[in-house]
């Protein structure tokens, strides 16, 4: 069958085309994932708490705003600012950066984080100018920007006292009752003045201006481009998890591993199964006996229990896990190939080739294997879903490779960190859906290939 004929047949199968489309999308996403996700370093830092600390904790996806009455401010990064630079007579440089933050939500962000890169010891002043004309000083301190310090000011963490002072400037009595450890500084600062800043602040909508002033006291010191991270009530396409990680990033990075696990183990198992099946059936004898016994042994073994106990003993890396999966799954195509080979062996063209003096390996590789190739492609695609589910299952119970970002790993942390109990559905639904979708695309492809390429129809 030529490639053109094959494509003619294939393009008639709707499910096959859907499967192919999904597959291509997965491959593209898997290959370019690092460029698409909002956190490009995530695959190296998935379990690094520091990497994720600017994100909100367990925030729902941003689009949930469309379905709730009180809209929450989404996460974002402010990078555009107006910069002013002047030099005082005594040689001290003053740099001012002004950020606009348009706030039009019912719930203020959870935190605002000001990041200032640079070098040297730099006195920083940060203040907020509100739409109602009031202003509040947030921060005033000397910061060591170069010495491996944090160069990061979190309003929630560092500005509680500033928020109380802001309230005091208008109402001493309320300010005296406020506890710096209990208030939410962002909520207080983003509230209408005098509207119960203590208990239930009513947010004040409008454009806020956050200004950063840095004093450069020495020519060795400098300040780079600052940015402000808005840690929102809602975040990203799929929200964040209980470790502040962006779920969408994890989902996209998981594609790559699902593809690697699925394609690698299915190709190894099918190639092994087909070759061993041919060898057993064609050569017969002791080899046949041994392989058939081995096949039966593995066939009767309870796979998941066995996989779990082996994982518990050996704590395998993902590659070892793939190898173990292969050791179990080659039996899937063995028996079918065995039966087919017994038939093909008796075909006249094989006999003709034998009469012409071909050795057994030549017959196996040149005549029998190519006839089984189409079958093996279909069977390869059809075996992928189960393999992906097995990896996810082993990961879910905490025995998988904890250094990769796979959907099973994401679900494992969701299960152990209470996503089910706390109703963090955006953490549970996407990974499982992706497992199902990936399985579906392979199943669609496999059934389409099976219909077109089935060797029973092609032997004549």
């Amino acid at each position, binding site marked *: 069958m030529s490639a053109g004929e094959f494509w003619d047949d294939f393009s008639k199968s709707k499910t096959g085309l859907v499967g192919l489309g999904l597959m291509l999308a997965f491959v593209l996403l898997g290959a370019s994932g690092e460029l698409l996700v909002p956190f490009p370093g995530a695959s190296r830092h998935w379990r690094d708490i520091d990497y994720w600390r600017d994100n909100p904790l367990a925030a729902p996806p941003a689009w949930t705003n469309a379905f709730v009455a009180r809209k929450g401010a989404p996460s974002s990064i402010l990078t555009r600012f107006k910069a002013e630079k002047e030099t005082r007579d005594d040689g001290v440089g003053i740099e001012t950066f002004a950020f606009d933050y348009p706030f039009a939500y019912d719930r203020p962000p959870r935190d605002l984080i000001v990041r200032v890169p640079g070098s040297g010891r730099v006195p920083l002043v940060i203040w907020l100018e509100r739409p109602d004309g009031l202003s509040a000083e947030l921060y005033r301190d000397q910061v060591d920007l170069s010495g491996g310090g944090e160069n990061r000011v979190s309003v929630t963490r560092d500005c509680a006292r500033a928020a109380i002072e802001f309230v005091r400037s208008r109402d001493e009595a309320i300010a005296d009752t406020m506890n710096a450890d209990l208030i939410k500084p962002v909520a207080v600062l983003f509230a209408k003045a005098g509207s119960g800043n203590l208990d239930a602040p009513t947010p004040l909508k409008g454009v806020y201006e956050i200004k950063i002033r840095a004093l450069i006291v020495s020519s060795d010191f400098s300040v780079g481009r600052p940015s402000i991270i808005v840690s929102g009530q809602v975040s990203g396409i799929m929200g964040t998890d209980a470790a502040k990680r962006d779920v969408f990033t994890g989902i996209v990075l998981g594609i790559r591993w699902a593809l690697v696990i699925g394609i690698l183990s299915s190709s190894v198992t099918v190639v092994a199964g087909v070759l061993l099946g041919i060898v057993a059936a064609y050569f017969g004898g002791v080899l046949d006996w041994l392989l058939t016994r081995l096949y039966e*042994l593995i066939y009767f073994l309870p796979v998941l*229990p066995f996989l*779990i*106990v082996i994982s518990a003993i050996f704590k395998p890396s993902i590659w070892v896990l793939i190898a173990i999966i292969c050791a179990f799954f080659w039996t899937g195509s063995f028996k079918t190939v065995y039966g087919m080979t017994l038939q093909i062996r008796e075909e006249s063209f094989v006999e003709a080739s034998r009469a012409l003096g071909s050795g057994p390996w030549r017959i196996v590789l040149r005549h029998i294997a190519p006839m089984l190739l189409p079958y093996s492609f279909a069977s390869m695609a059809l075996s992928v879903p189960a393999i992906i589910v097995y990896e996810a299952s082993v990961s*879910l119970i905490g025995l998988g490779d904890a250094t990769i970002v796979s959907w099973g790993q994401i679900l494992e942390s969701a*299960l152990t960190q209470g996503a089910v109990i706390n109703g963090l559905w955006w953490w*549970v639904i996407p990974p499982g859906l992706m497992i*199902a979708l990936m*399985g579906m695309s392979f199943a669609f492809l496999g059934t389409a290939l099976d219909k077109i390429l089935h060797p029973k129809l092609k032997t004549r």
Partner: protein
Amino acid sequence: MYLKFALRRIGYGILMYVAMIFIFSTLFNSVADRTARAQIDEEVAQEAGRLKNLDEEQLKAAVAARRESKLRQYHLEDPLPGRIFWRSVRTLSFDFGNSTIMKASDGDRAVIRIVLEALPRTVVLFTSEVVIVTVLGVVLGLYAARKPNGFFDRANSAMTMITNGLPAWWLAMLAIMALSYGIPVFPSGGLRSNPAPAGPAGLFDYLWHLSLPLLTLVALGTWSMAYLVRNIVLSNLQEDFVMAARARGIRERKVLFGHALRSSMPAIMTIAILGLFGSIAGNIIVEGIFGWPGIGNLYFIAVQQNDVPVLMATLAIETLFNMAGFVILDVVYGLLDPRIKAGGRA
């Protein structure tokens, strides 16, 4: 002739089972050795505590002798192949010994008691799942086969494709999230409420706890079962005897139920029976998520706590049932279909 075939098949199954037990005991050999030695030390220390009227030297000698005899009794001083052999023999004779950590609900440490306590719970959940799925699958599959490529048939195929790659435990997580915490209709897990109500209310309580896991499993399993039934029935509908029946003017309903379904029954029963025997193993993760203390859960706790005797027993029993299913089917088929026992090679 048939008797010879049946005996050979059964004998072969037993041989296979023995081989697998040997594999298991080789795999767990070093951990099992350690466990057994620790157990003996504990026992001997307990016995020594009861020995009163002996001086220190005599006590030491008595302990050493007792320990020695125990070690010999359990063949722990044998070389490696001997240890594996004797452990396999004990497992094969259902002598699973005592667990290291896990206990039955009354505190008994005999592994066989622990396993027999968990087994009925798994049977209640998973065996009833297989029964329900088979019945629903036959009904839906027949319905789909009546109009191939009709709306229902396509919907069913689509559901099969979707559920095919869907982990049951994920659906379980969703079900708990939605129906135990979101809208609290069902309990989130466990076997019964604490404290469990007495009398008929207790039975109701049990069924109430059973329903969410059962619903989840059935919701996932039914579609592929229906798809299988549909395929089997459809292939039979293309047989000559169906065409002959139709040509005789027999009503389509009767053709479907009387001819196609009847001739499909052996294949459907095969799937159901294998499912029934396989269901004994439960599902490790689904049981864990629903807190259903069956065999799967037992196995997983045994893995986590490194309780090798329980692990071995569970694996052995699962494998035994699995194998028994295949052998019984083969033997029954040999009885029904003479071609099978005549045909030489698999």
